[in-house]
């Protein structure tokens, strides 16, 4: 493509694919990040919330009179909320859709930590003191805290208007599972598998500063990571329009999905700001965050049946899943379809039936948590494959390879119509085994027997599906007006020729400034250092669409797709101006080294600063018929279509990144204590924009997964008391709990995304699959009891090694 003279385009350095320095680091390393609690306004009032100490109780009375006697105190009660707002919209159809959810409790509290009264005061201390003067008279009610318990006859009913504790149910049936079970050589049956409740608990809790202006509405400086989702709930509840809300986010101290569902709290603040006519400042305490924000979905898999042929071919599975989403549905029951993005996991299973129920219990409401809904399902599948290998005498490596979707089958259509774009799972497994030294560890595993330590090797294969199709919401409720996905970006030239990008996302550490600059730099012929990137949402001034935010492993596709489109549009403007000013054809113009050049005449070139100055401040020099703005928006829309709601068939995400981990661990037979001896990860997220950033995401997701398996669990007692409300009891992993994670990559470019990149970041919960498989390998050296839970602290492993027989497992062979 290079021309006879002038600039050689092919020689230009490409910034995509390089581990360029992060643009975010400069301020963050100096402690100059701007986080949500850093915003202040003169005259602000601080909020303290009175929260239910009970898991389930009737609220007999609320008395705020004593609190309001303190000077400057303003309160908000559940009865005021019911006068001033409508219930939040529900995504589910009836019966779950009948649920009435408000930002403060009314005559019932349904989980420990549910906010009952909000108190605002001129100082933090006074707000807390005043909150302690609020009198709430509770009458404790019987609580239900397990999925199986809440669907049992006689269980206490959480929401009378719903009439059942099953908020949503659907049976998905693809292929012919009954036929497969009938004709299989073996059927492996597992009574129960359980994915436990945990949270990625970002280090920065939720916080917001909310101001109210009678004419303009509310301005919310906050750390919600998906403000457009929030506003769709808040505006109708507050009986107003979306344009009356301006959300501003800047640096966000981690989110992991947990900061998506903060809208009930933001609604409380909006009501207080309007009532007090003062700026309202709220910052969660850690204990409030753990008991009152959101937890990951807890899922119980029952009555699992797996048809298998003699040669090891697994034909599919049949399962009943109970998804415990806590006291209110909020983002749910979306989890009820989001798992179906990865229905067969990485495998060629063609016959799958899932009877899925979203159930409510007296626990904190669930919200999307890193790996949302897919990791629960993928863990289940990996557990099934691993158990089948152990029980039918197959090598776990060979059985996986045999059942994986093969590299020549991509694009691969799953039984429910999802189209996996690209990948090579057998090669990832080979790479991981070679990297970890599999043969060596197998030998050492045998040598260790009898030493008091048992060595286990585990494999976990997972998918990180990204750029999801919101049309899947119609599988929940055909009346929901959602489908597709998208993101918005703006690219413009500033007065002296600087490139400025504005994104609609709300990043929490995902390096959007860095990677957006790389993409734009390549298109506009400048260095990433010369690109200014405005991140964080500002719906008052910035660009956004209804899907905007940072969630669900999609920025590399939707966010950078928007940047690419906006930068190309801006380039078209620049080329048009350059062609006019240099008096050459547009085809002859190339942008490189911060200037516009003629490809054919090396004498003709103009620095971007000069060129842009003509448009911005010297425009009489422009031809009359040249219409340019140098300020271009682009809405990226992934090529998706709505799924068929009847058959639940259709493509639910655009890209399918994959990860494969291998873990070697050692168990102390005496104590059940687990030590990870080696841990490797192979990542395939297609074309990598910035390898360093990709690796950082893999590390982070891996550590949170390892934490969940061995350390972190949100445990309730039978009264609905959460037993771990702070970092003393909720054992967030530290540097001594996670091993070094060694990793390598392959790149299977996506044929569907703008740059070949795939969304990534959630990581698909891989360590949960991997570590439980390694523990199964340890158990196989004793009595072979099944690893049935995602959470395996030492006491569980201790019990596993001492369980005789294989309770909960049946194998029948024809």
């Amino acid at each position, binding site marked *: 493509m290079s021309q006879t003279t002038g600039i050689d385009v092919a020689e230009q350095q490409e910034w995509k694919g390089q581990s360029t320095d992060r643009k975010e680091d400069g301020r963050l*390393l100096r402690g100059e990040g701007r986080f949500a*609690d850093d915003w202040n306004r003169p005259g602000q009032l601080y909020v303290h919330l009175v929260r239910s100490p009970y898991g389930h109780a009737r609220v007999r009375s609320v008395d705020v009179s004593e609190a309001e006697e303190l000077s400057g105190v303003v309160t908000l009660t559940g009865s005021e909320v019911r006068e001033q707002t409508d219930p939040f919209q529900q995504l589910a159809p009836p019966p779950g859709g009948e649920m009435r959810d408000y930002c403060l409790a009314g005559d019932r509290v349904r989980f420990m930590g549910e906010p009952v009264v909000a108190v605002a005061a001129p100082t933090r201390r006074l707000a807390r003191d005043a909150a302690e003067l609020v009198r709430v008279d509770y009458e404790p009610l019987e609580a239900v805290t397990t999925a199986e318990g809440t669907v049992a006859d006689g269980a206490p009913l959480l929401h009378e208007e719903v009439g059942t504790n099953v908020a949503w149910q659907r049976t998905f049936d693809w292929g012919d599972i009954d036929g497969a079970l009938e004709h299989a050589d073996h059927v492996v049956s597992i009574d129960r598998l359980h994915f436990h409740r945990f949270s990625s608990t970002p280090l920065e*809790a939720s916080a917001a500063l909310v101001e109210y202006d009678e004419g303009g509405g509310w301005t919310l400086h906050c750390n919600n990571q998906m403000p457009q989702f929030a506003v769709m709930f808040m505006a109708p509840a507050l009986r107003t329009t979306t344009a009356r809300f301006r959300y501003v986010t800047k640096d966000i101290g981690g989110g992991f999905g947990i900061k998506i569902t903060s809208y009930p709290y933001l609604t409380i603040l909006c009501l207080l700001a309007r009532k007090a006519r003062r700026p309202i400042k709220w910052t969660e305490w850690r204990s409030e965050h753990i008991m009152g924000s959101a937890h990951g979905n807890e899922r119980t898999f029952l009555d699992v049946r797996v048809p298998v042929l003699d040669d090891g071919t697994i034909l599919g599975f049949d399962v009943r899943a109970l998804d415990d989403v806590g006291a209110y549905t909020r983002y749910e029951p979306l989890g009820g379809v989001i798992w179906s993005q990865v229905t067969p996991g990485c495998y060629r299973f063609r016959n799958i039936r899932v009877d899925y129920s979203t159930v409510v219990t007296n626990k904190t409401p669930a919200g999307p948590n890193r790996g949302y809904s897919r990791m629960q399902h993928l863990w289940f599948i990996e557990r099934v494959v691993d158990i089948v290998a152990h029980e039918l005498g197959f090598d776990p490596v060979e059985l996986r390879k045999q059942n994986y979707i093969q590299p020549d089958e991509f694009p691969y259509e799953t039984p429910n119509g999802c189209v996996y774009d690209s990948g090579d799972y057998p090669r990832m497994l080979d790479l991981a085994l070679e990297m970890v030294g599999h043969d060596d560890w197998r030998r050492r595993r045998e040598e260790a027997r009898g030493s008091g330590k048992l060595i286990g090797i585990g494999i976990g294969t997972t998918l990180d599906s990204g750029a999801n199709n919101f049309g899947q919401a119609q599988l929940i409720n055909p009346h929901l007006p959602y489908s597709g996905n998208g993101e918005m970006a703006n690219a413009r030239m500033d007065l002296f020729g600087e490139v400025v990008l504005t994104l609609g996302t709300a990043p929490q550490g995902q390096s959007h400034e860095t990677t957006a600059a790389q993409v734009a730099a390549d298109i506009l012929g400048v260095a990433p250092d010369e690109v200014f990137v405005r991140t964080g949402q500002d719906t008052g001034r910035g660009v956004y669409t209804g899907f905007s935010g940072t969630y669900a492993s999609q920025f590399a596709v939707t966010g950078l797709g928007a940047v690419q489109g906006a930068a190309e549009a801006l380039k078209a403007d620049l080329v048009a101006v350059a062609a006019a000013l240099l008096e050459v054809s547009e085809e002859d113009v190339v942008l490189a080294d911060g200037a516009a050049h003629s490809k054919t005449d090396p004498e003709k070139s103009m620095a971007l600063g000069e060129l842009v100055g003509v448009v911005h401040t010297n425009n009489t020099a422009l031809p009359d018929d040249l219409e340019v703005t140098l300020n271009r928006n682009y809405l990226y829309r992934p090529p998706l279509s709505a799924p068929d709601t009847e058959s639940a068939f259709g493509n639910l995400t655009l890209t399918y990144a994959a990860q494969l981990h291998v873990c070697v661990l050692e168990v102390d037979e005496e104590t059940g204590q687990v030590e990870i001896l080696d841990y490797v990860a192979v990542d395939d997220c297609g074309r990598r924009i910035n390898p360093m950033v990709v*690796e950082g995401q893999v590390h982070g997701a891996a550590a*949170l997964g390892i934490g969940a398996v061995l350390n972190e669990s949100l445990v309730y007692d039978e009264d609905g008391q959460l037993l771990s409300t702070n970092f003393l009891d909720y054992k967030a992993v530290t540097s001594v709990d996670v091993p070094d994670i060694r990793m390598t990559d392959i790149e299977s470019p996506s044929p569907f995304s703008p740059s070949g990149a795939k969304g990534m970041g959630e990581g698909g919960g891989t360590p949960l699959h991997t570590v439980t498989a390694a523990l199964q390998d340890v158990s196989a050296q004793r009595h072979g009891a099944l690893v049935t839970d995602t959470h395996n602290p030492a006491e569980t492993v201790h019990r596993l090694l001492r369980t005789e027989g294989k309770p909960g497992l049946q194998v029948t062979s024809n």
Partner: protein
Amino acid sequence: MSTTQPQTSTQITVTVDDIEYQREVEASDLLVHFLRDALQLTQVVVGCDTGNCGACSVLWNGRLIKSCMMLAVQADGAEITTVASLAEDGELSGLQESFSENHALQCGYCTPGMLLAARSLLDRTPEPSEDQIRRGIKGNICRCTGYVNIVRAIQAAAGS
């Protein structure tokens, strides 16, 4: 009727990042709230309120402490160092550069405390082993990086 706790205020003099401040503080004010609210030094952040996460770490007369575990009155006469003092003549220190080069930060919320923990470790142990690094920063929680690149960054900074 007011039943708020009786407060006793005291004047303290404290030096933070080489600037001396004199302020009235209540007996029960935590140092972290004093730094953030009274002095508006937002580089000191709150992560847990129970002394477990290390986000609010500062150096107190050169010693690493968690500022949520200390009362403001105890800081009377003390020299407090925050992350703002790590840069030298406006330039990032070698340790900070190493954090950037090794991608040892993502959201950046734990970073001020983590840098101070690393600084404190390297002052005590200039050539730490991986194990010493991991034990040295175990009081500082990071939810983004899995600690992998933090350990590498500290190793690299120690080597340089």
